[in-house]
């Protein structure tokens, strides 16, 4: 009698309930938000203000970052304190394109971006060569963060740097990158970075409809990455990642080499950040080296932690909670924002190891049990 060895059933990407929630989210982003913002008159109670569109668009970019961090931290157990670099790199690639789109409308009426005229440069440096093509920019948004992550990750994972060591080294990386980008000679506008964008693909950037397009694109990217993440963590690849997180040595003894797995997810995560950065820059209208400051990257990690690691919906919720609180508190009580953020760091690590999602599940579990 032979008994078939049954492999565990591959879980569905989303449950039936999940799919309906996903469709609702898709409709909200693609139909409801544009409708409320552009069609509903401004004095109506249902009108979505331009400010809210900008804010939500920004937070959705952050949510993509949180998702990326969750893949590498929550599912693979590698805490990166350097994801700000990838975010900023994507942003800078986009920023270069937007700077070229300004054309001769800058203050100095020159073909070169204003800051280059200011530095008395006569021609574009080599790394600006591809920046006038939108297609090349789209390619570079993926390629630059991906390449940097690949090189850094290859050397780091190959010598089996892990745990806190890895976190500290990534922090040093973002610090070094920030110093580099602060220099005028690097050719990225130094302290001031890029700003004063005028057009994207020849269309004026500041109109409400353009903003809405960017908003919808960001929303689609977020939802797309979410689905991708669901698919990834349920795949065999994702299961190996989780095994690496839980017991790396055992994975090695089972005949897997962790290096390609870690490297792949690391590069994927970096690319997601790059895309988020590229969507972020046209919406907020500025990119400068302070995006790479170590503090920013640590804050990104807390978005994932607040929402709940290793649950893909958690980081998205976390990004919304933390950044929503930030934009509210920094206006209404700026002196308390750091207290709040600090307390959040401490509170979440001490009392909510599984974040908000973990808390909800626990409460629901209790409710069902009783």
């Amino acid at each position: 009698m032979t008994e078939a060895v049954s492999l565990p059933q591959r879980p569905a990407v989303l449950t039936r309930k999940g799919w309906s929630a996903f469709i609702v989210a898709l409709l909200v982003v693609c139909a409801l938000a544009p409708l409320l913002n552009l069609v509903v008159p401004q004095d109506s109670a249902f009108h979505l203000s331009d400010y809210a569109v900008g804010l939500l668009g920004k937070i959705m970019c952050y949510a993509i970052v949180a998702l990326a961090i969750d893949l590498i931290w929550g599912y693979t157990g590698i805490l990166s304190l350097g994801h700000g670099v990838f975010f900023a790199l994507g942003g800078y690639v986009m920023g270069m394109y937007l700077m070229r789109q300004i054309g001769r409308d800058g203050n100095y009426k020159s073909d070169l971006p204003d800051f280059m005229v200011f530095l008395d440069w006569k021609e574009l440096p080599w790394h600006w060569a591809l920046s006038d093509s939108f297609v090349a920019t789209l390619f570079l948004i993926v390629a630059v963060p991906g390449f940097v992550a690949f090189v850094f990750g290859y050397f780091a994972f190959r010598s089996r740097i892990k745990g806190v060591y890895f976190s500290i080294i990534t922090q040093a990386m973002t610090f070094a990158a920030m110093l580099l980008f602060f220099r005028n000679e690097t050719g990225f506008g130094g302290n001031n970075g890029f700003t004063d964008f005028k057009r994207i693909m020849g269309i004026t950037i500041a109109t409400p409809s353009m903003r809405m397009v960017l908003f919808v694109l960001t929303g689609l990217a977020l939802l797309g990455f979410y689905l991708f993440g669901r698919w990834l963590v349920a795949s065999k690849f994702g299961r190996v990642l989780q095994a690496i997180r839980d017991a790396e040595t055992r994975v090695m003894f089972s005949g897997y080499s962790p290096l390609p797995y870690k490297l792949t997810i690391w590069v994927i995560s970096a690319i997601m950040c790059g895309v988020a950065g590229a969507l972020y820059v046209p919406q907020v209208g500025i990119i400068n080296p302070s995006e790479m400051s170590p503090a920013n990257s640590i804050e990104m990690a807390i978005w994932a932690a607040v929402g709940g690691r290793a649950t893909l919906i958690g980081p998205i919720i976390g990004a919304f909670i933390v950044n929503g609180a930030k934009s509210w508190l920094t206006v209404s009580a700026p002196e308390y924002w750091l207290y709040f953020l600090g307390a959040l760091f401490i509170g979440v690590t001490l009392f909510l190891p599984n974040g908000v999602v973990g808390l909800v599940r626990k409460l629901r579990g209790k409710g069902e049990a009783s």
Partner: protein
Amino acid sequence: MIIRTFFIALALCWGPAAQALTSAEVQAIVVGDTDARIAALGQAVANADDKTALFIQALVDDAVKVAGDKVLIVRDGKGTDPVTGAEVEVPASVEDVISNNRMRGEFDTALATLRLFSKNAKQRAEAVKTLQGDADESKLAIIEKALAAETVPAIKTQLAMVRAAVLLSSADKARRLTATGILATSGNPEIKTVLLQRQKVEDDAEVKAAIAKALMQVNASLAWGDRIAAIFSGISLGSILLLVALGLAITYGLMGVINMAHGELMMIGAYATYVVQGLFQKYLPGAFDWYLLAAVPVAFMASALMGAALERSVIRFLYGRPLETLLATWGISLMLMQLVRSIFGAQNVGVENPSWMSGGLELMDNLQLPWNRIIIIGFAAAVLLGMAFLIGRTRLGLFVRGVTQNRPIASCMGVNTARIDTYAFALGSGIAGLAGCALSQVGNVGPDLGQGYIVDSFMVVVLGGVGQLAGTVYAALGLGVLNKFLEGWAGAVLAKIAVLVLIIIFIQKRPQGIFAMKGRSAEA
């Protein structure tokens, strides 16, 4: 007092030949066009007496007034006649003497020339320094006289330099050549300028060649000074890094706690120093110079208590979860920064150096080692020795090492491990406070003080190897010197980036740091 010294010195030098300051000279120095005034000043200096010094000093201090054709010195509302020294009444309407910058420069030089005869060697040395670079031929006679009278060898050499610098523009070719020969032995940037200036106007080929050769020699000795200065500033930076990293060597190296709030504990130490300074200013202004001695233990205690409180309230629950510790301590650091901002304001506060720490040790003409840096190097060494003793030789140190190596066994032996953790963390924090106290003497004290050091200090600990004091020391000094050398070669920012990249490459080769721990604790 100084004036009296002048008087005696002048009396000794000049003897009976000295002529007194006359009212005609006084008039000529004060009134007229600048050239004439400078000529009169030169004459007065050549025949100087104590009154001349007093008078020129008064001119420098803007205390000389003119009333009609009378010139008088007015200090604190009392008038004196510059020639007789007798007290005179200040007339109702007096005019200030107006001196342009060129005139003021001449006053300074004249005063320095007169001080060449001061009895106080320090004053003479300073006078020689002032004269360097701006003495001219009119002062030659006086400089030679002073040279003959000078007894201190160091000042004599300097004075000879000044004389040679003057002679360099002499009309006599032989004198110019000798002067060049003397100047070649100097290592002073001002002499270099003098030589360069002469090189431009010199038309005699032989002298020109000699000057070129002399310049090479001067440059060589200047380069030495620069090199030593670079090494010194490297060691100085290294000593600061060492102070910062020593605390981390305990909390991270021994206990394995990633304390991102370490920089903020340093900041607390710096602010404690500021508070002590304020208290001394208010209650003990007489002993203000010694406030720093009181600030050292206060800074230690303030940070240590804060560290103990943090350990008890937060960190204790996170042992064995380094990533969570990292995030929680980052949160603590944010709160501490905001706390300090709320109490002391967001601006930097001023912490003064006590007078015994200002100034510096002058080793060469272009090499001055500031006292505060030297003292911090010594302080870092003392803290290091103290810590090595504490960890290596005391009962507490034994317990700390025991708990680090094997917690359950240490516990079985009756060590209260929880309490040892608190003590060790407080110790590491206290050392951070000491580092902050030291930093307050060389840098700005503000809420962001700790942020600038946190990456560097973790690099030191990572590079030095976990659980190793010796590694921390070598890594701190090595990074400091390397940083400063690269800085001279590529600029501050690129140097920092290069160092970070080098560390990342180094960690590839030796993930355990320079000095890897051997034995079982290595894998822990």
